[in-house]
């Protein structure tokens, strides 16, 4: 199994019981692939995200106050990837806990 698949599998397993924020994925990609270039981190992270979406996870905004996810209207993986791509400016570094861009969860949550 490729490294990227293993990483994605790890997050898919985590999504069995938890919401997975982009803020958690990006730094893990950075660490596991020993990346220093923000653009590379973004590109690799989007590869992981693509796998998560292909396995049925959906993206949404996470309501931290109430621990709820509000799925985006975009449900098509390509559209979700495009939105993340638009909202992620590598010049500002990786997504953070307060500015995660999105979280992922299984569709049953909503």
């Amino acid at each position, binding site marked *: 199994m490729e490294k990227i698949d293993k990483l994605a*599998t790890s997050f898919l397993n985590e*999504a069995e019981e*938890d919401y997975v924020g982009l803020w*958690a994925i990006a730094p893990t990609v950075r660490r596991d692939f020993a990346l220093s270039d923000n653009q590379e981190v973004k590109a690799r992270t989007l590869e992981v995200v693509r796998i998560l979406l292909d396995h049925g996870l959906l993206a949404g905004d996470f*309501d931290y106050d109430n621990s709820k996810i509000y799925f985006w209207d975009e449900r098509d993986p390509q559209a979700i990837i495009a939105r993340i791509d638009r909202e992620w400016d590598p010049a500002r570094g990786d997504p953070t806990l307060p500015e995660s861009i999105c979280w992922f969860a299984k569709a049953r949550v909503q």
Partner: protein
Amino acid sequence: MVLTGAGYVPLGQEAPGKAGTNVTRFRKGNPYHDEQGLFTSADGAASGEGRAGSVQVASRDKWPPVRTAQTGEEDDRDRAEEQNDPSAEARQQQWGNAIQTLRALDPKNPNLSYIVPQDWVPSDQNIADINTEIANVATRRATDFIMPGGNLIGEQGSGSDANVRNLPDGAQAAQAAFDYLSVGGKPYAGSYSSSGKMVTLPGNVGWVGLRSNDQGIPTVDINLPATFGSIRIHYR
């Protein structure tokens, strides 16, 4: 030891300063000092009785005011310049806030023990230095929590990512961990996070949050971009 006009003397001992020179009271215009112009650690370890006159005293070379003994004339001129500085009050405020944060994080931090002259105004460099110390202490505090004894806290959780951890004792333990990690931080206010369940850590080294996971299990998120990246701890 402290630096006085007469050389180094231990904190708490009277320096043989200028004849007839008494303790300079520093309360006026700066609420972050005690009446002797002394920042002390919370346990009062540095609160000495005797003070040199109007000459700066410091316990560290790093900051603050490493001014050597000066003539009275030079001292007066410096003070006059400080009094004409329109940003002096703002810098004193920043300094005071920083001292409070550092004290909350690390009450015994050696940088908390020093004496400054009446109406001392910190420079931008003084403030930058203390903020660097705050960032270092905040990072160390979070790191020590995440890796007590050099090993990641708790047991590895779901998935194969070592940064997902499981700990026992549920909501109470999660709240205690969040409270501990939040010390000196500021509640983050943004969309979907305005209830104080997410906090920006001191020195802006990262964030900590308290939420429930998809199964309702209390979870603490820790995001330290420059060190650990992301940690999720589930309190089962």
